[in-house]
């Protein structure tokens, strides 16, 4: 080749065949300016825009997936706890202990709710009709109440600290978890969210 410094690069994979980028060596001084058929920097701008938009959307999708996992795990473990209490035959095992065990034995619950990494889900128990109050500093809040006499209407007002009700009563567990999105833009939009679930069980012994 007469001009070995010149190379013609066909970017066949990125551009239409009629769009050819001719790259000139810097040594070819005094020659006409190389032909460019894209505005300067457009590729970089496009890449940045699409990359940032994709990142945000994947972040949002990831958060939705995380919230979904929290929802489903909380629902399942709350139900398992209520069922465990309802079917409990061992008089030496307490109500709170049974709920704690149900949460600790669920791998998903430990993974999602054990914030401080001490291999157990720290549960704050409360007793009464209201939803438990939890913040981001807590792991799980559980409110326990029951109805001793369904004949008079269901009111869920029976509650005694440390107890899950008497034999034949209808037990209700309300669990709540505070979740904070990890992804910055989503966190700014949502802040702190609460996910909650309630489940029932029928006591077959007195706690």
């Amino acid at each position, binding site marked *: 080749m007469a001009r070995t410094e010149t190379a013609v690069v066909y970017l066949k994979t990125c551009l*239409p065949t009629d769009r050819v980028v001719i790259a000139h060596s810097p040594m070819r001084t005094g020659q006409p300016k190389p032909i460019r058929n894209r505005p300067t920097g*457009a590729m970089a701008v496009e890449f940045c825009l699409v990359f940032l938009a994709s990142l945000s959307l994947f972040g949002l999708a990831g958060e939705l997936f995380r919230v*979904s996992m929290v929802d489903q795990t909380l629902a399942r473990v709350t139900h398992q706890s209520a069922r465990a209490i309802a079917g409990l035959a061992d008089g030496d095992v307490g109500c709170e202990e049974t709920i704690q065990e149900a949460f600790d034995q669920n791998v998903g619950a430990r993974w999602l709710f054990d914030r401080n990494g001490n291999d157990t889900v720290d549960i704050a128990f409360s007793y009464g009709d209201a939803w438990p109050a939890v913040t981001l500093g807590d792991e799980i809040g559980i409110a326990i109440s029951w109805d001793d006499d369904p004949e008079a209407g269901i009111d869920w007002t029976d509650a005694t600290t440390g107890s899950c009700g008497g034999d034949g009563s209808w037990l209700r567990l309300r669990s709540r978890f505070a979740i904070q999105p990890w992804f910055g833009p989503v966190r700014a939009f949502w802040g702190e969210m609460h996910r909650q679930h309630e489940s029932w069980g029928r006591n077959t012994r007195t706690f």
Partner: protein
Amino acid sequence: MRRASILSAHARRGSAAVEFVVLVPFILVLSAAIWDLRVFTAYRTDVARENYVIAELIANGGTWTSDASVENVIEAAAERLGATSHGVLHVALVTRAAARHDGTACVDDSDWCAPMVTRAFYDYAFPGGAGDCRNIARILPDEGDRFDVNATVLPFEGADPDGAGPDPAPSVDQWVSRNIQPEEWWIVVDSCSHFGEGPRSRLIGGRFMNMALATLDVSPVMQRRSAWVAIDDLSECVWC
């Protein structure tokens, strides 16, 4: 030689903005659809789970002294499910019929005899209304009527547990209208719920979700049946 481009330089310059504007709504709609499907799936799981709890609860309530307890429990359950949907609940107390479909009296306990509905607590609408469930006929028999021979009402619990049964014998855990002991009683709960129409549907897409489900031939109206055997004998049940 510079070749002519099909696109003008002006059009090429705007490609990033065009991509952004065109793609983002699609991805947002897709994310909303995925979230709605998640809520829908979670609701289906919840209804199936709670249906059994209601049946178990009533079946274990043999010591209740009146129908009021049963009615209160059903109303509370309807309220709970009605928080996120419209629908209706039916509860039936099932015991052994006195005679077979052909009129043969069920004298021997080991005789094949169909279950029947002894007490019926039907048509408890959710607080927000029955939704599209009002157009769906109840499939539990009326009070005093037997289940059909091949109705799915009670689980078959193994080979020949209570004497003669349907021929050929069904597989274990298949739900059939099987033999039932004189002291045995079950609670059968039928729920019909119209998802996405409740006061707190939690759907992003709202009615669009119903359209999408209809397109996929998935009905937002769900029917579930749960049955739970009582721990007490029928003679020990006060309200039965």
